[in-house]
């Protein structure tokens, strides 16, 4: 009985660890993708429309 409870607790904590890792990875990926598009991509449409923001936020621009 106690063993079962321990196993369940371990599974739950494993599940919450996985959820945490997924959360960190998901948030970091979304953040990096948005940041790349807004701040670093050199495509000229992005560059021109994001131009003033890039200068004002001190991204290396052109």
């Amino acid at each position, binding site marked *: 009985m106690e063993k079962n409870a321990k196993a369940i607790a371990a599974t739950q904590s494993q599940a919450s660890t996985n*959820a*945490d890792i*997924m*959360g*960190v*990875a*998901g*948030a*970091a990926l*979304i*953040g*990096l*993708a*948005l*940041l790349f*598009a*807004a*701040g*670093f991509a*050199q495509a000229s449409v992005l560059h021109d*429309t*994001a*131009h*003033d*923001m*890039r*200068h*004002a*936020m*001190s*991204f*290396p*621009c*052109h």
Partner: protein
Amino acid sequence: MLKKIVTSAVFAGVGAGVLAALLQLALVVPLIMEAELFESGARVHFPEGGSPQSDRGAPSVWEEPLRHIYTVGFSAVTFTAYAFLMIAGFLLAERFGHEVTTRRGLFWGLCGGLAVVIAPAISMPPELPGAIGAEVGPRQAWYLSCVVLTLIGLSQIGLGTRARYMMTAPVFLLAPHLIGAPHLDTYFGVAPPELASEFVARVMGVALISWTLLGLFAAYFWTRPEET
């Protein structure tokens, strides 16, 4: 979990991003537009053989409304990106037993501003349009490395629990500057030095204010009790 991450990041990012853009439109964008007059040659500060002198004054920001709407939009996107990354940091910090509170969010924000704007500016100051710099690729690589190393150093100081972190943190903080940013060996600037220094000071000031707001907002939305 994912819903909480997304709503916190979007609320905090759009809020801080729009406020940052308003500050930039008032303080920074006019200097960018003024520098473009020198970039295009409409104004000349260093005429051949003459003394360096030119008129002062920026074009009105009301002349190109669409351009500034883009700036507000991209500022919101950029700060939302930073908010996602900061919340990834919150999750990691909580995982290692550090509590996130709204008030601590101020420090998270200040450290973010230090890492993303102030530290890189030490070796690679923000540039006005028209400034000619080294190749953009190596500069972006140096900039990113500097941000990452500074974040590692700051988190060792702010979140580290072992004494040795106080020894390694300065190494991470100083390394990008000891290695040095890519630079040309010639000055090419066409804008007056006063304009460039005013621009750099305002970029750094506005960035610190905006980042502090971002940290505050992100921690506030992150720690708000979840509605069930």
